[in-house]
């Protein structure tokens, strides 16, 4: 009974930047997952707008920073997390050859793109773990908010230390031979917590969508998983699509994809890593996850 049902449009929002890389494969067939399901993907320049649209009920799915997802959940917004799609990919970079080791960080100024962002939180967590008081022993500087601009300054050697995400890490390393990796935050995290990499980006779904189209959930999630695998295996093709939707130039995206730690982990599998992540965040700055650890209801399996 293959009746021509009405087409369902699934609205998905992603942010500009690497968190939007993984789902780009959904666009291959003009968004059609099957004959009557189409994903309409919107790229938003800031998490703020994604949040606003999500709260407003205009989005069914969205890629969000993990802590923002928990925060929204804690604030009673009807969403659940369904999968982890991106893991940590943050680096301490320096162009100062006199900085060789982590203890050289003392009394240095470190540029962080975006106060309160994941790079900020990780920088604080890691430096604290390394024994610094980030209020006094080092200086975290937020005066350049955009990662692109921090990269720009690092390449031009107008700043000497920064925490950057991909693809800017790759870009910076390729653009200036003096820039080197000082610390791999992911490794330090693993050493610190004894668990795997931390989840940076998750896919959330609105309760409304689950209510109305529960049957489509596996379809969409399957497509996302397939997309991520495709992106990871065909970075240069994916990069072309990335440029097409206006996230980033292909030339910049392609080399960064392999290092962007794009993964697909259903919430059941990813829950453990998230729990660890949330606990650490809670200890540091509980407002960043909305003041409480998310309960079981936050994780949705399909």
């Amino acid at each position, binding site marked *: 009974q293959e009746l021509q049902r009405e087409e369902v449009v699934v609205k998905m929002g992603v942010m*500009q930047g690497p968190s939007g890389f993984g789902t780009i494969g959904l666009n291959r067939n003009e968004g059609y997952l099957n004959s009557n399901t189409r994903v309409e993907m919107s790229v938003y*320049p*800031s998490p*703020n*707008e994604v949040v*606003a*649209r999500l709260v*407003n009920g205009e989005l069914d799915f969205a890629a969000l920073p993990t802590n923002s997802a928990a925060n929204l959940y804690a604030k009673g917004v009807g969403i659940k997390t369904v999968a982890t799609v991106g893991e940590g990919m943050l680096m301490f970079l320096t162009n100062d050859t006199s900085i060789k080791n982590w203890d050289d960080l003392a009394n240095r100024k470190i540029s962080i793109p975006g106060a309160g962002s994941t790079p900020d939180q990780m920088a604080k967590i890691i430096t604290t773990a390394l024994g610094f008081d980030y209020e006094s022993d080092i200086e975290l500087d937020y005066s350049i908010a*955009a990662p*692109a*601009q921090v*990269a*720009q*300054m690092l*390449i*031009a*050697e*107008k700043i000497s230390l920064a925490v950057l995400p991909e693809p800017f890490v790759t*870009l910076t390393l390729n*653009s200036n031979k003096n820039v080197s990796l000082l610390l791999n935050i992911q490794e330090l995290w693993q050493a610190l917590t004894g668990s795997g990499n931390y989840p940076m980006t998750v896919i959330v779904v609105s309760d409304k969508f689950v209510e109305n189209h529960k049957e489509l959930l596996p379809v969409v999630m399957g497509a996302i998983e397939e997309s991520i695998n495709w992106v990871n295996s065909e970075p240069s093709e994916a990069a072309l699509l990335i440029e097409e939707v*206006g996230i*980033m*130039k292909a030339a*910049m995206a392609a080399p960064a994809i392999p290092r962007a730690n794009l993964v697909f982990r259903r919430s059941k599998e990813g829950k453990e890593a998230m729990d660890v992540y949330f606990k650490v965040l809670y200890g540091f700055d509980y407002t960043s996850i909305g003041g409480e650890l998310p309960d079981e209801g936050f994780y949705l399996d399909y």
Partner: protein
Amino acid sequence: MKGSTSTTKIIVVLSTLLLLLVWQLGAVLLDAEIILPRVGPTLAKFVQLVKQPPFSLNLLATVGRALKSFLIIFVVGGVLGVLAGYSEKLRAFLVPFLLLCKATPVMAVILLAFIWFSSGAVPLFSAFLMGFPAMYIQMAEGVGLISQPLQEMTQIYRFSKRERLFHLVIPSLAPSIITGAKASLAMVWKVVIAAEVLTVPRYGVGSRMQLAQVHLETAEVLGWTLIAILLTALGDLLFLAILKLPKKIGQAYRRRRYEAQLPL
């Protein structure tokens, strides 16, 4: 400000060259193309941008947004300003609203704007909030400067409301209208582009800027900045033209100056 004579034109050109020189010097001293490219490459990029096909689309989108905001501000700010100039009550009534306009950080409003309007309207909305006070205040204060003796004269000679508007109020306000409109328009350019940078609509000078920024194409960012500057310059020239062309307004402007020059 009088029409530019050839001397002033030469000075404008020279001072522009001086600015370019400062830029070039800065670029040489900084020696970091990624932060401040030299003049040559930037101009080359500029020419390239202008030649690129979607250029006019981007330009028109931004110009459209700016003009739309400007028109709204001009009409709403002008009418409310004049009315508020006459009615102390309306003025008091608008105090909180004006404060809101003047004080609310664009950031805080942009979020709401996202929700209430389509994201395409965010630049319009922000531009309105930023540009409205300039126009409104100029008009409200301008009304206070309308000649009281002339006002009495129109009262004695029984000018109708319409005649008072056209033969006393508007001519008296001409300088305020022009100052206010100039200030608002300058503001509007800037805010529209800033909002485009934040919201990245499909077409727009600000969108291109934001993308160029993400790609660390500093020359392109500066190229678009040059375009923004030229747009603003064009706006200013337009106002000069308005001052010169339609005799009535231009004369009113000059005459108001004369009137203000009358001694006791």
